[in-house]
């Protein structure tokens, strides 16, 4: 295998992206075929390189900015995982986007982000990582912006939030590069204290923002409504999770010497726990299929961050496993949302109902994925969550409880979602709804099967993918070691079911099953504010910016006054005074000269005399 072939995973998608721009629209399916071909090739390349352990470094821009790629098990695993989702997404899009006006742009951005993801994951040079990482802003913005009418605003919001945190990432990279005196990732090993702590913090902000954790999440629910649906399944649900959690693991496990009792670990666990709880609490009250899912996309990141943040073997393995599982079931869920959107014409829960009979395959896939995300045994989400619980419990019962509460709420909200959309009374507008086309079903079915496989045979991903990456974890396979915890989980799930039944009874319909939580005395006000966006960090930021700009404006006026009025008046006043002094009177002039001469002479005598 020559060196240049190693560049293929990065170069091929770019080339394909450019090619897509020039493909004529007139030939049917040719563009879709190209994208599928490129995605397939990407998967083949990822599989071919899976066992590769090699590095390539080509001089590029100088100043330590080399085109350095490193193939090793962790990166290869992420590339392979993303390649699977990419292929499935491409397959799904080939139908979903067919005939849409923006499909060309979408495919361009799609392939671009494939190349960028591969590049960012494989890069062994921090500056190169930064290059790919920041370049992801382009497809991010572009893919959201081609959505509906509100999309441009949402795209801007995403761009600003991600862009701002990318700047933190940049600062972290520069700082850690200069602290370590190298930009080669595999040679960096810094302690997270002093400036190193600052570097870690900057990197962490950029990374968890990419993964979509709180408080950098608020564009995701908006994008769920405004952006084209495959974007949601592809970007926030899979690619960004893989990328973000991959880098979180890299910085906490290799680049920085973080150990369990450092503040870094505590910070990560707190961020993780808060993200789980707050996001799922918001998911609970959503009445739109896609928007509800998007809050779960945020909430689930919390488990991954919590897991990695525990820095104990069970937690780390659990976090990474959960990352993999999440991409599987969340993509599946978003695909099911796309099915509904395409076939039923809406994703608003109040207009859906009783679709299980009309779209049985979609419903089955949804069911599997929903059971997985809720952590029901024996689906994959159960096993990864159990590992996270185990890690969290080793670090403190608070985190365990938070995670468990999160599971409870997740289950509650999915019971509501499934019940409202697929069961119950069929709405009038859903009477003619039919099942989705074949090529949209394939990705869903595949993902649902993966959910089951990774659950029942969880040793497959753990032994072949996760354990080589972390290098430990013999006992964390099969049935969870702590049956005690599993029992709790099952009990909590039973409680969730009970809560749902009671909620439906008190609310009158599945849609209102969570109203008793939504309108609970203490929560009602908070929810109201949150729904109106008062608690959105982005909006708070804008309000702060408004205050800042008002202050700056005043300051600007003052500076303006100083230059425009004060200085001019002072200069012209002085000028007029000088003119008045030049009266043309000889004696005065001679007087000036003589007085000044006397002063000069006196001064000289005084200084030297």
């Amino acid at each position, binding site marked *: 295998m020559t060196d240049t072939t190693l560049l293929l995973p990065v170069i091929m998608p770019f080339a394909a992206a450019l090619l897509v721009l020039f493909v004529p629209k007139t030939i049917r399916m040719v563009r879709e075929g190209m994208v599928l071909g490129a995605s397939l090739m990407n998967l083949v390349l990822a599989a071919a390189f899976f066992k590769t352990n090699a590095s390539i470094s080509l001089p590029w821009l100088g100043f330590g900015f080399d085109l350095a790629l490193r193939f090793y098990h962790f990166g290869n695993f992420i590339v392979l995982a993303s390649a699977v989702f990419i292929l499935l997404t491409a397959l799904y899009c080939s139908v979903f986007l067919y005939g849409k006006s923006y499909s060309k742009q979408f495919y361009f951005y799609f392939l671009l982000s494939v190349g960028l993801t591969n590049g960012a994951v494989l890069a062994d040079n921090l500056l190169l990582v930064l290059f790919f990482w920041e370049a992801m802003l382009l497809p991010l913005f572009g893919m959201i912006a081609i959505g509906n009418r509100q999309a441009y605003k949402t795209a801007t919001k995403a761009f600003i939030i991600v862009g701002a945190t990318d700047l933190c990432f940049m600062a972290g990279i520069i700082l850690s590069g200069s602290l370590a005196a190298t930009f080669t990732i595999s040679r960096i090993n810094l302690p997270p204290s002093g400036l190193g702590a600052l570097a870690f913090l900057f990197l962490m902000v950029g990374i968890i923002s990419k993964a979509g954790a709180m408080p950098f999440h608020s564009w995701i629910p908006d994008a769920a409504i405004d952006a084209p649906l495959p974007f949601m399944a592809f970007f926030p649900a899979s690619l960004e999770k893989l990328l973000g959690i991959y880098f979180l693991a890299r910085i906490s496990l290799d680049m920085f010497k973080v150990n369990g009792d450092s503040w870094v670990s505590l910070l990560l666990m707190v961020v993780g726990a808060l993200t789980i709880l707050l996001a799922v609490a918001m998911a609970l009250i959503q009445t739109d299929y896609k928007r509800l899912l998007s809050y779960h996309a945020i909430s689930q990141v919390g488990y991954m961050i919590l897991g990695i943040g525990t820095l104990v073997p069970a937690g780390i393995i659990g976090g990474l496993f959960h990352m993999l599982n999440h991409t599987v079931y969340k993509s599946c869920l978003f695909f099911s949302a796309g099915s509904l959107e395409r076939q039923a014409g809406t994703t608003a829960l109040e207009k859906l109902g009783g679709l299980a009979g009309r779209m049985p395959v979609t419903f089955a896939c949804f069911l599997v994925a929903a059971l997985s995300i809720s952590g029901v045994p024996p689906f994959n989400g159960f096993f990864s969550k159990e590992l996270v619980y185990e890690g969290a419990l080793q670090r403190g019962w608070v985190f365990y409880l938070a995670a468990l509460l999160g599971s409870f709420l997740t289950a509650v909200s999915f019971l509501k979602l499934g019940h409202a959309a697929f069961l119950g009374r069929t709405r009038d507008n859903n009477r003619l709804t039919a099942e989705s086309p074949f090529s949209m079903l394939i990705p869903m079915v595949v993902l649902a099967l993966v959910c089951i496989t990774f659950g029942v045979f969880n040793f497959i991903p753990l032994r072949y993918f996760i354990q080589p990456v972390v290098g430990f974890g013999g006992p964390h396979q099969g049935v969870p070691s702590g049956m005690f915890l599993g029992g709790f989980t099952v009990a909590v799930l039973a409680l969730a079911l009970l809560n749902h039944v009671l909620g439906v009874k008190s609310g009158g319909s599945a849609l209102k099953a969570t109203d008793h939580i939504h309108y609970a005395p203490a929560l009602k006000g908070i929810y109201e504010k949150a729904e109106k966006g008062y608690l959105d960090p982005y909006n708070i930021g804008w309000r702060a910016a408004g205050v800042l700009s008002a202050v700056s404006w005043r300051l600007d006026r003052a500076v303006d006054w100083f230059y425009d009025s004060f200085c001019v008046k002072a*200069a012209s006043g002085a000028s007029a005074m*000088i003119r008045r002094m030049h009266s043309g009177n000889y004696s005065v*002039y001679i007087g000036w000269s003589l007085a000044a*001469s006397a002063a000069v002479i006196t001064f000289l005598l005084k200084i030297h005399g």
Partner: protein
Amino acid sequence: MPSLLILVPLVGILVLNFLFKFVVRRAAFWFALALFATQVIITFLHAPFFYAGNADRFNPFFKVVFNIDGISFVALLCIEIVCLASLVVARYTLHDLSQRFNFTNLLLISSIGMNGLVLTSDIFSLYVFLEVAAVSSFIMIAFRRGKRSLEGAFKYIILSAVATVLMLAAIAILLLACSDTSFAAIRQGIGQSPESNIILFSVGMFISGLFIKAGLVPFHAWLPDAYSAAPDAVSVLLAGIVTKACGVYTLIRLVVSVFGFRPGLSQVILLLGAVSVLVGALAALGQNDFKRMLAYSSISQIGYIVLGLGSGTALGLAGAVFHFFNHAIFKSLLFVNAAAVAEEAHTTDMDKIGGLSSRMPVTGSTSVIGFLSAAGIPPLAGFWSKLVIIIALWKAGDIAYAVIAVLASILTLSYLLSMQRRVFFGRLKQGLEDTREVGPGFSFISVLLALIIIACGLLFPMVFNAIYAPIKQILIQ
């Protein structure tokens, strides 16, 4: 043979009056032009001689000692270039043939005075040459015999008389104290008793006289009247070189070669420099008369030169000498342009003129170069010299003065910009439709001066090195 620089104009005057006066008075201009061109050539031919090092060198022809070095070279070059410009301007602006002939004579006399005071190494000879230059200037200012001209000339005479008294008294005291008036003897005398009150007293008097000649605030009151009342050709000469040679060059020469840098003297020079920079710029801001504004601007720019000198370092002195040269060029250029405006528009009141650039493109565009150089805009020559002066002040620890110098350059830009806008830009004022370029010679001299400004700016490293290297040598000695 630097003595040629005095002999050439001297013989020239004789030839002019005995030959040309009766035969071909019209050719007097070309003859004088040739004389000044010869001086430029002589100066350039002697460049290695000037740069051979600072020396009081015996001149075999006059049997006296000349004091020459790199600074003298720059000063001589300025004198000759400005005299040339003045001569050309006179050809177009002095219409009466006999007046022009007389002017040519006076210009030659003035150049003898200035060349002499640059070369001499004797404080009394210096005084004599100063008076030669000054007296010819008095006459030239009063050339038109109008009320304003006479008033301007009279103010100059009165204040010059004060300066004369101060300098003569100082020379007398120095003669008593040091038993000779040569630079070397006085330097020795001061070296022997540096704290002597009588010597300090005379030094103070002498430099006060020079301050009057240089027109530093508050010794400056004669200058705006003299500059603005003088005929245009004379304004070019006065502003371009006479005050600088008589006041600034002599100040530099005496401080460097005779009195030496001493803290008290430096402080006086710095303070007067800063005051001149500020007051000159502020006063220029409020002027409505083109030439008067340029006159105040000269005070301000001379302040910069003096600030560079006051820093007391080789770098500051080099900046001062470079600015001396730059100021001679750009101020001559601006006065040449003012002369063109006065000639065509028959007024220099800036409220009555406007938009002349459309009718006088060469004058308008060279004026832009001149004012940008004066305001210190890169890459023109004036920028570099100001920059060097400011850096030198900063390095010498005179940070307050450096800040004043920087701030005043904003004022400089503002008044020169307003001048350019009022005179040349905008809509052509009524009654100026018939204006046009004065003549090819006029345009030639404007373009030549503008080209010197641009070339010195672009070739700054070479030009500056030619000034800086000898000065470092001088100060080491």
